[in-house]
């Protein structure tokens, strides 16, 4: 299955790219997506995660065609 991964703000700068397109087989979670996309970098504790533009937990499942996003705490307003 195909998963689009997106990164924003300081996290995007620290890993040096704004998105990945990954292929998985079998059941996958948001945490699995991070580990596959960034095998040498531990996910920072404060990072927020979303699937298809809704906030989710790291153990949430992802499915084919999902867009998974990782980003730091929000600072708008």
């Amino acid at each position, binding site marked *: 299955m195909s998963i689009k991964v*997106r990164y*924003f*703000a*300081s996290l995007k700068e620290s890993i040096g790219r704004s998105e990945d397109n990954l292929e998985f087989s079998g059941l996958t979670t948001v945490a699995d997506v991070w580990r596959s996309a960034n095998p040498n970098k531990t996910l920072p504790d*404060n990072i927020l995660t*979303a699937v298809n*533009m*809704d*906030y989710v937990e790291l153990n949430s499942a992802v499915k084919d065609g999902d867009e998974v*996003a990782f*980003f*730091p*705490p*929000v*600072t*708008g*307003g």
Partner: protein
Amino acid sequence: MEIKIYAESFDPLKEVQVYQSSAKDMAGKFGATNIFIGTMRDFNEGDDITGMTLEYYPGMTEKQLEKIVAEALRQWPVIDALVVHRVGDILPNEPIVLVAVWTSHRGDAFDASRYIMEALKSRAPFWKKELLKSQAERWLLKNTDGYL
């Protein structure tokens, strides 16, 4: 209800005036309008700030703002609401955010707009990067809780 994201500077009071005058079905129904405007300062954490870049997540930002406003509409008898937020490069003294809420009575207008604003600060995907007078750049790490 309307959510707007602007990449250019905007006039918040004009936004309220235009929105209110175009919402004909609201005329005569509202007795209270609460308007919150957030404006960029030229100082933060002891440093002079000369500019700021606001990044956002197109699609998710609007989706989360719509959810937040919908939550407010479920909790208070809100007649209408308008949320406007800047993105891109911003200068001190330019407005960043507008939350306007129309209700029959003032208490609901205050409470609903406060709810929207605090939820926006903690859940709407925007990120600020400040440009200091020294030319250094820094990302803001987190928003403070407005109730503390």
